[in-house]
């Protein structure tokens, strides 16, 4: 059974089960390890990618449900250099261990694409990813700097 996926603009024909989770196909079949495994049940957001611009927790999405879509991973986000959001993450020294940050950055990027000037409240209601290092205050500061720009 062949599954057709478009990831970061590249089309792939993959011999995987239709119910294989998108996360593991991205990581193990395509070798794109920037997208992380955190919980496996869409509870933490470490595996967030963008599907047609919408954030998706890939650990719980069967690949068959995203055939024909444009999938963007953290590797695709910065294919043409760092985005302003990624630069803001550096400027505000957001990451600590960094493990959740791919998913965090993808989720916030999806928010900013729709709402370039989110309020602190918009951010808090839209982003429910977990960061165990507790980088939330810096995430808020980084997003606030972009929202003002």
């Amino acid at each position, binding site marked *: 059974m062949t599954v057709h996926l478009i990831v970061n603009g590249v089309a792939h024909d993959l011999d*995987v089960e239709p119910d294989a989770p998108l996360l593991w196909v991205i990581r*193990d079949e395509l070798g794109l390890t920037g997208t*992380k495994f955190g919980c496996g049940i869409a509870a933490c957001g470490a595996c967030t990618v963008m599907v047609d611009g919408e954030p998706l927790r890939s650990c719980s999405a069967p690949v068959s449900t995203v055939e024909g879509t444009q999938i963007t991973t953290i590797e695709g986000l*910065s294919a043409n250099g760092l985005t302003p959001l990624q630069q803001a993450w*550096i400027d505000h020294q957001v990451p600590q261990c960094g493990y959740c940050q791919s998913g965090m950055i993808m989720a916030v990027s999806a928010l900013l694409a729709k709402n370039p000037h989110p309020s602190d409240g918009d951010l*808090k209601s839209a982003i*429910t990813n977990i960061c*165990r290092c*507790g980088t939330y205050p810096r995430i808020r500061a980084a997003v606030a700097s972009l929202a003002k720009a």
Partner: protein
Amino acid sequence: MRTRRAVLIGGATTAGALVVGYALWPSHLLEDADTLDAKPGERFLSNWIKLADDDTVTIVIPHCDMGTGIYTALSQMAADEMDADWSKVRAEAAPAEKEFANGPLIEAFALNGTEVPSFLKGMAASTFRMLAANVSIPGAGYVPQITGGSSAVRGTGVFGMRVAGAAVREMLIKAAAARLSANPAEFHTEASRVIHKSGESFRYGELAREAAAYTPSGNPPLKERSQFKLIGQPLQRFDIPDKVDGVNKYGIDTRLPDMWYGAIRVAPVFGGKLVSVSDAPVSRNRGIKKVVKLDDAVVVLADRFWRARAAADSLQPIFDTGGNGNVTSDSLRARHLAALKSGDIKSDMTVGDGADALKNGKLIERLYNVPYLAHAPMEPVNATALYKNDGTLEVWAGTQDGLGARAFCAEAAGLPMEKVTFHLRPSGGAFGRRLPGQWNFLTYAVKAALQCQGTPVKLIFTREQDMQHDFYRPNVTSRFKAAVDADGMPIAWVNDYTTDDTANPQAHIVYGVPHQAYGAVKVATHIPTGPWRSVEASWHGFFIESFVDELAHAAGKDPLSYRQALLKDKPRHLGTLTMAADKAAWGTQMPPNMARGIALVECFDTIVAHVVEAEVADDGTVKVHRVVSAADCGYAVNPDGFKAQIEGAIVFALSAALHGQITIDQGAVVQQNFPDYDMVRLAEAPDIEVYVHESDARLGGAGEPGTPPLAPALTNAIFAATGIRIRDLPVDNVRLGKAARQQASL
């Protein structure tokens, strides 16, 4: 493990400037290091420092990167003493080789005083032999490359990096002096150049080869604090760019050709064994390679992780319970209470008349409890192991001790150390989970790999397996008795507590109470425990700061001024506490349902005070709006990085205080994943302000000390807002709504 770590790293010692370099290598070990870790055109000039012909300075860090920013802070310390041009400085992980052990540095720091421990004095070679002996005896309890105890900057940095940097600077000056046949005193250094008083100057890189001919001094002069150029600067972290674009490679990202992926099911009850399992249900599934039966677990290996995990989930292994199948959280609680009523409490320390002084005042008695907690780092524990056809073993994983992990894997495989290579990877969070003593993920990966010679095996714990097979922050119960005088001030302070280990000095108070007594009683359980960010301070901090707050309220006094009165002989503590209170505008009016709480804890040589501003809604929902923190770690090597650690510790501790509890039923952990072991997310995260209270104390730790004062500051705020005193965490378990408040006020 906890005990050993506490002894090595947690000991309180006196402040004092120290100028030692006994851990510097003699030249033959530098040659070993060159062979192991130098690239063409670069060489080691001293421990931890490589200098290349092109001026690049590489600081070799004998610690893991688990997100605390130490690669940058330690590099600042070495580069400052070296007078290196910061733009030429980078950092890399030390290999898991005994030449790069940090043990002596941490030992030196623990033994600190003002002189070199005699067994090390002037004897770098003997240091080396000591390490070699210890590393080659797996399980000896020695932790040679550890990252823990908030010890990197104050141990490795102070005793290793600064000394090594200063020694390298001296060697470079000697090389320049030789070139000009001049007196070394005629030179100074600046921005990676050695400059003669005539104005003639040399790049560090061009002197590197000649400088390497000199033996590093064990006792080079170090800078005064006023001379620092890099230490004390909020420099950007080296590791962050690779953490915003998915490039940073954690253990779980290890990829090897034709690798198999492993999913595991461990006996649910700790100590239980695998009785039987049939692999028939999965043996014909796509991609399944092997079902490995271990003593207490079953591992399914497949060509892809999702296939391994699905197969592991569908197996029906039978495990026994090791006789612990009836244990519950309630039965454990009963054990703790019985222990505190038993005659088995062992006296730890007495001050003044101890418990005898309880009769001299009005008695106040309280009982507190904290639950088990999981570490739950974002990267579930995992390891990749390859048992090669030539009989050697190679392992990749994030741990908090690369060299120790290598020794551990060697023992698990029954191989000599030299047949094992360990590749230390950055950790996606650790918080103590990846310290020695908690390496079940290494054991299982190595055991599985031994059965698949020639094929690499990546074993990943699912979140559920990670949460149910952790080494938990222990459940602890603590009883306090105080006698207070007519003003409500404590005359006697008596504290007995349960422990999974031994008595710990973290129970000892900083407050000026004339008569004190402490006792501990061990409660043995089958639940594995381990260090969790801030270790003993995480529970004793909650207990002490809750009880002192209760005493203040019982006295009808303001909790801040009550503490200030008890700290009048402790200027650093008093200053830190007062700074937090002032910055938070302590005492000013708050909106309805809102209140402030304060707490102060010293651990890992750093004093931290938090003021929590909490709102408790009519329905009992708790919302922390702001945390204002003051911290005295002497001075911050990287102030922005230090603040980030305090911020992170506050959020970490808030998750635990509000939501965190691991409960036990039928001998096993009940919680499985983030829905039932929930974390603070953006919406719940407070505004945080961190202020550094500078002092001339010796450097304190950064990673852990922000954790302990949060829970008591929060529950103290909740008491001030509601009149309900929380003596048993987490907050989620306690009803705080209007009805409960009326009940409490009756």
